C-alpha cells in the first residue's frame, strides 16, 4: 500500500518539474532574441520589415509570450511539436528520423559502462590500497579527465585511420555492398564500436569511482561487521549486503549520468558524424531552427524525467525506508 502511494506521489511530482523546465526552455528561446530577425539577418530585401511581419504572423510570433506558451504547451500535450522553420517538415517527423540512433548509441554505451565499471569498482574497494587498486583509481581519474570528443578523435585516429579496423563516421554503411558478411546487423554493430567505447570509457571511469567509494563507505558500517561476526561468507557479505546498499547511490548516479550523456550527445555525435539527435541539434542551432531546437530539448527533458521516475521507483524497491516513509 505504501509503495503504490509512493509511486503516485512521484508521478505527480514530475508535473511541476516538467512545467518549470518547459517554461525555462520557452523563455530562453524567446529571450534569445527575435527568431525572425535572426533568420533574416543577412537578407538584403528592401521590404524586409514587411517580410518579417508576415513571417511573424505566420508562425504566431505576434501574440503575447504567455499566449504563445499556452499554444505551444497545448500542442505539445497533443504531441504536436510544430513545424521546422527550414525544411517545413513537422518536428515530429524530423526527430523521429534521428532519435533512435541516439537512444541506441547511449543504451549500448551505458550497458557497457555498467557491465565493466561495477565489477572493477567492487574489486578496487575490496583490495583498497593494493597495487591493482591504485592502477584502477589512477586510470579512472584519467578517464574522467578526458573529454568524450577528444577520446573519440583519438579512437578514430588509431582504430580507423591507422589500423583501419572500424569506420570513422556514420551509423551505417552507405552501400549494402560494404556490410560485413552482408549482414545489416553486423554493420550496425561495426559502426557502434568506436562511439560506444569512447562514451563508455568516460562514464565507466565515473562508475568505478562511485562504486568504489560507496563500497568503501558501506564496508565500514557496523552491519557489515555484524554480518562477518555471524559467519557469513565473504561472497554473501560483498554481493548481498554491501552491493545492495551501494546500489542506492549507484542508481542515483545512473539517472544523472543519462542526462549528462544526452546533453553531451552533440559533441559525441559531431565527432563520429552520428545521425542522432545531438547531430541534428547542432545543425538546427546553426540554422536557428527554433521549433526543432525546442522539440529536441523537450524530448530530452522527457527522457530525463522518465529516467528520474524509474530511479525513484527503484529506490522504493531497494530501500524499505523509502517505501514505508
Amino acid at each position, binding site marked *: 500500500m505504501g509503495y503504490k502511494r509512493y509511486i503516485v*506521489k512521484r508521478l*505527480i*511530482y514530475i508535473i*511541476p518539474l516538467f512545467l518549470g523546465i518547459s517554461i525555462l526552455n520557452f523563455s530562453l528561446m524567446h529571450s534569445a532574441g527575435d527568431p525572425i530577425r535572426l533568420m533574416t539577418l543577412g537578407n538584403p530585401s528592401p521590404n524586409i520589415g514587411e517580410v518579417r511581419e508576415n513571417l511573424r504572423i505566420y508562425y504566431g510570433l505576434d501574440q503575447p509570450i504567455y499566449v504563445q506558451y499556452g499554444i505551444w504547451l497545448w500542442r505539445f500535450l497533443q504531441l504536436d511539436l510544430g513545424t521546422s522553420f527550414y525544411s517545413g517538415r513537422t518536428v515530429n517527423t524530423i526527430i523521429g528520423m534521428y532519435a533512435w540512433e541516439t537512444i541506441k548509441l547511449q543504451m549500448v554505451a551505458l550497458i557497457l559502462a555498467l557491465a565493466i565499471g561495477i565489477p572493477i569498482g567492487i574489486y578496487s574497494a575490496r583490495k583498497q590500497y593494493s597495487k591493482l587498486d591504485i592502477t584502477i583509481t589512477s586510470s579512472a581519474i584519467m578517464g574522467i579527465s578526458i573529454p568524450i570528443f577528444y577520446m573519440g578523435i583519438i579512437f578514430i585516429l588509431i582504430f580507423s585511420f591507422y589500423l583501419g579496423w572500424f569506420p570513422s563516421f556514420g551509423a551505417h554503411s552507405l552501400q549494402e555492398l560494404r556490410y560485413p558478411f552482408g549482414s545489416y546487423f553486423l554493420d550496425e554493430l561495426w559502426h557502434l564500436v568506436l562511439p560506444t567505447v569512447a562514451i563508455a570509457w568516460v562514464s565507466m571511469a565515473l562508475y568505478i569511482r562511485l562504486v568504489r567509494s560507496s563500497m568503501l563507505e558501506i564496508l565500514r558500517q557496523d552491519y557489515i561487521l555484524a554480518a562477518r561476526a555471524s559467519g557469513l561468507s565473504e561472497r554473501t557479505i560483498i554481493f548481498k549486503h554491501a552491493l545492495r546498499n551501494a546500489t542506492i547511490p549507484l542508481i542515483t548516479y545512473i539517472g544523472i549520468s543519462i542526462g549528462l550523456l544526452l546533453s553531451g550527445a552533440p559533441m559525441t555525435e559531431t565527432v563520429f558524424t552520428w545521425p542522432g539527435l545531438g547531430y541534428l541539434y547542432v545543425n538546427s542551432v546553426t540554422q536557428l531552427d527554433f521549433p526543432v531546437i525546442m522539440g529536441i530539448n523537450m524530448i530530452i527533458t522527457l527522457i530525463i524525467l522518465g529516467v528520474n521516475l524509474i530511479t525513484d521507483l527503484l529506490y522504493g524497491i531497494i530501500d524499505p525506508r523509502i517505501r514505508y*516513509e
Partner: protein
Amino acid sequence: MKELPKNVVLEVEHLKKLFPVFEKGILFSHQTGSIHACDNVSFKVEKGKTLGLVGESGSGKTTLAKTILYLFHPTSGQVFFEGIDVFKTFRSKNKQDILSLRRKMQYIFQDPYSSLNPRMTVADIIMEPYQIHRHIPKKEWPIRMYELLRLVGLEDYHSERYPHEFSGGQRQRVCIARALAVEPEFLIADEPVSSLDVSIRAQILNLLGDLQSKFNLTYIYISHDLSTVRHICDEVAVMYLGRIVELAEVNELFESPRHPYTKALISAVPTSKPGQKSNRIILPGEVPSPINPPLYCRFYPRCKYHIPICKKKDPKLEEILNKHYVSCFRGKEKLD
C-alpha cells in the same frame, strides 16, 4: 514583572511544546499530528539549588530545557526568571532585553564533541560571549579568559589550541568556561557527563558542584542516570512522555517514591553490590509514541497498579505530602 515566592528564581507555568508532524505532500507538506514533547509542565527552582530532571529518551527533558531558554518556541505556557517573563521578552525582539536575559541563563550540552566549533581556538570560543555582549572592556578579555580557563581546571596554554586536540572531559570544561563567560546565574546542564568516560565523570560533576557553591548558581540538571542525580540534586522531577509524574526532594523521592513509574525507574538501576540481585520491577513494553498520546493516564499501558479510573481520566500533579507532588490516582496509597 511578577512577584515570585521568596528564593524562587525560576518558575515554569503550564509549559507546553508540541512539534508538528508533517507528511511530505506533492508540493508542500501537511501536518498530520503533533509530538507532545512537553505537555503542561509546571515547577519552581529555588536560588542556589539544583533541580534534577529525570526520564528516559523521549520523555521531553531536553525539549523542556531548550524551551525554557527559548531555543525552541513554546506552544503555550509561561516562564518567569527573577520575575521577568522570559517568552514575552524574547518575543518582543528588543535586542537589549534579550541579550541581558541570555546572559543570565546558560546551557551546557550533552555532547562535548559537537558543542565546540572545530574551526575556533579555545580562546576564540571562550571570548565569543564577550564579542556578543561587550559587557567587559576589550582590554580585559584575555585576562578574563585565562581566569576562566584556570577556574575550570585547564592550563593557560590550552587557549591557543583547537577543540580536536582535547579529550571529552577537557572539552566539557571548555564548554563550562564558555557558559560562565557571560556570568550567568542559572545553568541548565543537559546530561553533561553521559558521553564522558567513567573516570572523567567525577571530575566534571565535582567541578559543577564547586562552581555552584562559589557563584551561588542555580542548576537544572538533566540526566537519565539516577545515581548521579541522587548525588548532585536537591530536588528531582521525574518525566514520562512529556509530563512530570513525580516531583520531590531528592532523598524523599529515592527513599519513598510514590509513582509506579518512579519506582520502576529506581529499581531498574543496577546497584554496585555484587550478589545482591535486586527485586527489580521490570516494566512491560516500551514508552509509547509521543505523537498524539492518549487522553487518559499516559503510563496506564505499562502500569500494573491501574484501576478503572486510570483509563478514563488524566491524573493531575498533586501535592500529596509536603513538597512531594505525584501525578497518579493512587499516589496517596503506599503501593508495593
